């Protein structure tokens, strides 16, 4: 039987990384996610699995250390919060351009600028629409519980290696700081160097005597070749969109109205659903689990069944644009959000549904 623990979301990320067999963590402290690095240092994973943990001098260094580790075919990761993630955008673009797998966790706080250390979901655009320069995407997972924080570490690495692309866990201060029940796994051994060398010919694992050296780069000065790189990357993204969409439907069977929300907002919407159904409002929730690829198809199908959707986010309205694109203006879609670190209450979310969608 798996062990049950009460853990913070941040601690769950750290514990999952050790137990899943991550090779290297490189990070820099920032609220509200410093528990990740603290937990990793306290656990001394080098003694347990050989995992390397290093506090870097900056987020810029952290993401480039991840690049170096990922280029060796190792499972490398970093974590930060919004301002630190902004600093990592250059590195993320290079990693996507060099087609390397890695995991980056963003425990989002409110911005812009130094903003607030309180929870927010205002980094949706940055995460799903690029952030760094050039045509690339981040495979983005949005956990809504501490268990998902734990589970998505493995899932993110699996997807990252499957598509040779960086994966992001987009969390927020609520899911990072809340403690919940978590089932944890036994320690899995890390990949051996022999396994990596055999499995990932793109990785710098030491030149083989009879084959050319391996080069990991995102540079291609010949435009015709660079276009081929872009075409290949885009093809990979189309495949990812076709195969990797994940979402959860809650109380949707008889729903006349829907909330669309991810992460902690989805949790708040679940409470709002309870309150709404007590009042006789048939409301459900579509919870995107992958923010990219976005669950556009199911939202489009649901738009044929319900009267309206309210996109609930702790932002000024970012994901709502994807909901609008998905539902093609077939029904009324509105946004409700709080920002600056204010978490909306279930009562005000329900009120927004009643005024903006049902009565609107």
């Amino acid at each position, binding site marked *: 039987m798996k062990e*049950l*623990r*009460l853990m913070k979301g941040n601690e769950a990320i750290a514990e999952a990384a050790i137990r899943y067999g991550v090779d290297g963590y490189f990070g820099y402290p920032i*609220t*509200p996610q410093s528990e990740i690095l603290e937990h990793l240092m306290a656990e001394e994973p080098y003694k347990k699995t050989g995992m390397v943990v290093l506090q870097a001098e900056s987020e810029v260094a952290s993401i480039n250390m991840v690049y170096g580790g990922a280029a060796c075919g190792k499972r490398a990761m970093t974590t930060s919060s919004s301002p630190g993630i902004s600093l990592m955008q250059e590195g993320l673009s290079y990693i996507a351009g060099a087609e390397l797998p890695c995991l980056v966790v963003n425990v989002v706080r409110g911005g812009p600028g130094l903003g607030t*250390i*309180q929870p927010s979901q205002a980094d949706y655009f940055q995460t799903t629409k690029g952030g760094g320069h050039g045509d690339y995407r981040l495979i983005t997972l949005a956990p809504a519980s501490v268990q998902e924080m734990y589970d998505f570490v493995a899932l993110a690495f699996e997807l990252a290696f499957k598509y040779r692309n960086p994966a992001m866990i987009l969390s927020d*201060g*609520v899911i990072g*700081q*809340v*403690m*919940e*029940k978590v089932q944890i796994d036994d320690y899995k051994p890390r990949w051996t160097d022999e396994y990596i060398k055999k499995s990932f010919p793109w990785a710098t694992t030491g030149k083989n005597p009879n084959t050319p050296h391996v080069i990991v780069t995102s540079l291609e000065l010949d435009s015709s070749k660079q276009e081929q790189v872009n075409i290949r990357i885009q093809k990979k993204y189309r495949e990812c969109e076709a195969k990797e969409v994940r979402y959860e439907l809650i109380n949707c069977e008889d729903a006349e109205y829907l909330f669309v929300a991810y992460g*902690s907002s989805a*949790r*708040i919407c*679940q*409470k*709002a*659903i*309870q309150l709404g159904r007590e009042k006789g409002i048939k409301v459900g929730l579509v919870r995107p689990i992958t923010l990219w690829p976005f669950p556009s198809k199911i939202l489009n199908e649901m738009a044929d069944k319900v009267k309206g959707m309210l996109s609930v986010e702790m932002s000024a309205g970012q994901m709502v644009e994807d909901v609008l694109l998905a539902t093609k203006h077939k029904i009324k879609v509105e946004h409700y959000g709080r920002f600056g670190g204010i*978490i909306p*209450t*279930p*009562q005000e979310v329900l009120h927004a549904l009643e005024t903006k969608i049902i009565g609107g």
Partner: protein
Amino acid sequence: MTEEIIIAGFGGQGVLSMGKILAYSGIMQNKEVSWMPSYGPEMRGGTSNVTVIISDERISSPVLSVFDTAIILNQQSLDKFEKAVKPGGMLIYDPNGITRHPERKDINIYQIAATDKATELGIAKLFNMIVLGGFLKYKPIIQEEFMRKGLEKSLPARHHNLIPDNLKAITIGGQIIKDYHIL
């Protein structure tokens, strides 16, 4: 059964650890639990609060604006959270340092002089367990054996010798809590 609780007081009063022990004990009793702290500069000596939810079902929002029970350990928290108790709900407070006592008439209010008791017994560090004992007297949602297991899980092994004292403090809390305003 779902019990939605806010515990609020000064940083250093053991607000967060009280919530954590309660939540861990909930897990031991096979409940769903959630523990959501306020965080930030408040962690360093200012006010501190934590929302604890214990339930038989999957927990929806870990962040709430109204509560079944408020456990209040200073004046600022009383001012902030008295109004957040659901009608018919429960408020427990330590009168130490309180200048404006709770005034609501639509909730059950209990007083627990845990600060005085802990000082009297020389167990200042177990103050929060006395308060928790007061809560468990009126909301016996966790059985003693699971409290013990919760303490084992939440306290580092080097402090396991203190578990009997913790349990004793919980018992004392149940003895000294008294009615302030009962519906």
